[in-house]
């Protein structure tokens, strides 16, 4: 409780510290109350995360609403393995793209998280000493 409960928490030494034991009116939601992460890392991580989401969700919308509905009829003029392309997208293509999008997301995020030191790899504590407690190693 040495930290201000003000959420805008005045930066100390240019580094904002999250103290989850401040949230005493709430039931604890994860077991890392003493965990501290530097604000810079967290903020740039979140920005990178939002960028990834924007790119992938645009792709998702393009595939499902675009190829699946809006340009579906236009795509029919092309042929893929005996299918009119637009028809193929509605029956199989969109779904295959969806699977690809999720796996791209997984790999991309993993990379970003390692770069920002906020990942949940086993033993990753060593990589970023600011992270004081275990990461998912609780019983």
């Amino acid at each position, binding site marked *: 409780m040495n930290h201000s*409960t*003000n959420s805008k928490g005045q930066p100390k030494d240019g580094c904002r510290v*999250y*103290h*989850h034991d*401040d*949230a*005493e*009116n*709430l*039931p604890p*939601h*994860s*077991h*890392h109350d003493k*965990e501290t*992460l530097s604000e810079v890392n*967290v903020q740039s991580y979140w920005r990178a995360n939002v960028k990834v*989401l924007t790119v*992938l*969700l645009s792709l*998702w919308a393009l595939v*499902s*609403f675009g190829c*699946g*509905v*809006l340009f*579906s*009829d236009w795509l029919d003029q092309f042929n*893929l*393995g*005996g*299918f*009119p392309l637009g*028809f*193929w997208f*509605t*029956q*199989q293509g*969109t*779904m295959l793209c*969806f*699977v690809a999008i*999720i*796996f791209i*997301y*997984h790999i991309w*995020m*993993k990379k970003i*998280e390692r770069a920002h030191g*906020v*990942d*949940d*790899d086993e033993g990753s504590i060593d990589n970023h000493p600011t*992270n004081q*407690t275990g*990461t*998912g190693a*609780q*019983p």
Partner: protein
Amino acid sequence: MSAQILSFIFVGLSFALYIGIAIWSRVGSTKDFYVAGGGVHPVVNGMATAADWMSAASFLSVAGILAFNGRDGAVYLVGWTGGYVLLALLLAPYLRKFGRFTVPEFIGDRYYSKLARVVAVICLIFISFTYIAGQMRGVGIVFSRFLEVDINTGVVIGMAIVFCYAVLGGMKGITYTQVAQYCVLIFAFMVPAIFMSIMWTDNPIPQLGLGDKLNDGSGLSVLQKLDQVTTELGFNTYTVGTRSTIDSLAIIAALMIGTAGLPHVIVRFFTVPKVSDARKSAGYALAFICIMYTTIPAVAAFSRLNLTESVHEVAYSEAPAWVEKWENTGLIAWKDKNNDGIMQYRPGHAFIPTKPVFTEARGDYGERVISNELTNNSNEMYVDRDIMVMANPEIAQLPNWVIALIAAGAVAAALSTAAGLLLVISSSVAHDLMKRTFMPDISDKKELLFARLAAVVAILIAGWFGINPPAFVAQVVAFAFGMAAASLFPPIVMGIFSKRINRSGAVAGMLVGLCSTLAYIIYFSFIAPEINNADHWFLGISPTGIGSLGAILNVIVTVVVSRFTPPPPAQVQDMIDDIRIPAGAGVAHEH
């Protein structure tokens, strides 16, 4: 051996397997189902999620919808699978980090309000009940056919089995049981699909077979043949869509947002060890789902060809045996309008009401006599869409063991989903509603009692809807998605991505979203079904697609109300910061 005896053996064996797994996983030191989840590998969890999510509707009904609607039916495929992307990108990692078991718990804590939690529970119950009703109908169809009883009797048998299964198997072994169920249902679905693909095109891969040339030497491809057949008989051309663009977009959006808001699917992501595993697990789940979902269009196309060939312009006295068997379940009916003894299968409803009302009598050719008023089109057949997958092996004259396999697969699909839903309903009622809201002092024993009672009530209500379905299985299920889209998804996503959204905004948004969507669906499905068409729909959006508009309304109301009310307290803002970072996710735990 007859198909009926084989069905008994297959369904019996699969049951023995599920119960065996449930007992086996109970023996281990599974302190709780919840903690057991902590050690589930992403691939295993993905498989279980796939089984949880692929319901009787996926197994039985979607292929039927596609077979009868052609390209228009594809909105269900795109919508349901596309929702998985939203789930994986916007919800799964953060809810896993949050580390609790139920969706109302997240909403209650994020919006620091009992009222928000209660509203979330109400939304969740609405959704789950609608969804489970579809499962009961599905189980009913399976049992009515392979026990050769009336569909209503089938639903009652299904209710009894789901009840025993939920109580006997308990919820502890649910993950591994669902893995087994996935294996059973995917095998059962693929075998007839491969058979039919070989039968029509010589191509053993149904996904490719659909685009292939027919092997009858006509030089036509499967799709060309389908277009030809459907156009000749006066149906809509198979590969050409007739749905308006706005309605297609709305339905796809509603199904997508709804999938991501389905409580029984969301909770699955609490059971992986790490946040990154939640993402990976969603990917595997969708991959497993897509094995079946990319096969569905092929099954639909082949079965449409099969059905038309074996029924249209065939004398009733020479009809294949399956026609009479399905007629006995009440899911096929024939009225000889032109007195030629031949079945004509053409577009339009053969009679009013569209579902047949049978009398006890038999007609000149031994058909069941119906008392419906006749329409003046030339269609003489009623074929329930939900029978397509079940009837396929018989229509295609596949061996009896394939028929039995389908029965086991459909039961697996319905049971896995029903069990997941029952878990969500009972935990929400007992835990979120009773323990954490109204009766905080009740003992664990009492909480369990409430959980069981909630499950029983859920089964009874679901059974009633199974006997009196407001629509086809897939449509019933689609309504559930609409409600999930309009009520649960927006507050969860906004709760993660915005720190400004507060209690008043979320509660108002959920209520407006749920009520407006529900009102629209009830109005067009029950109060004024006669004007349920594009001319009367708001902006040309059908009741199936209205959830997307409900979701937009929800977001607007939430944002506006939040703007004019104080921001969430500091603790809540800290909690949001915390769930945004993957590091430090403990094992999901109970409070």
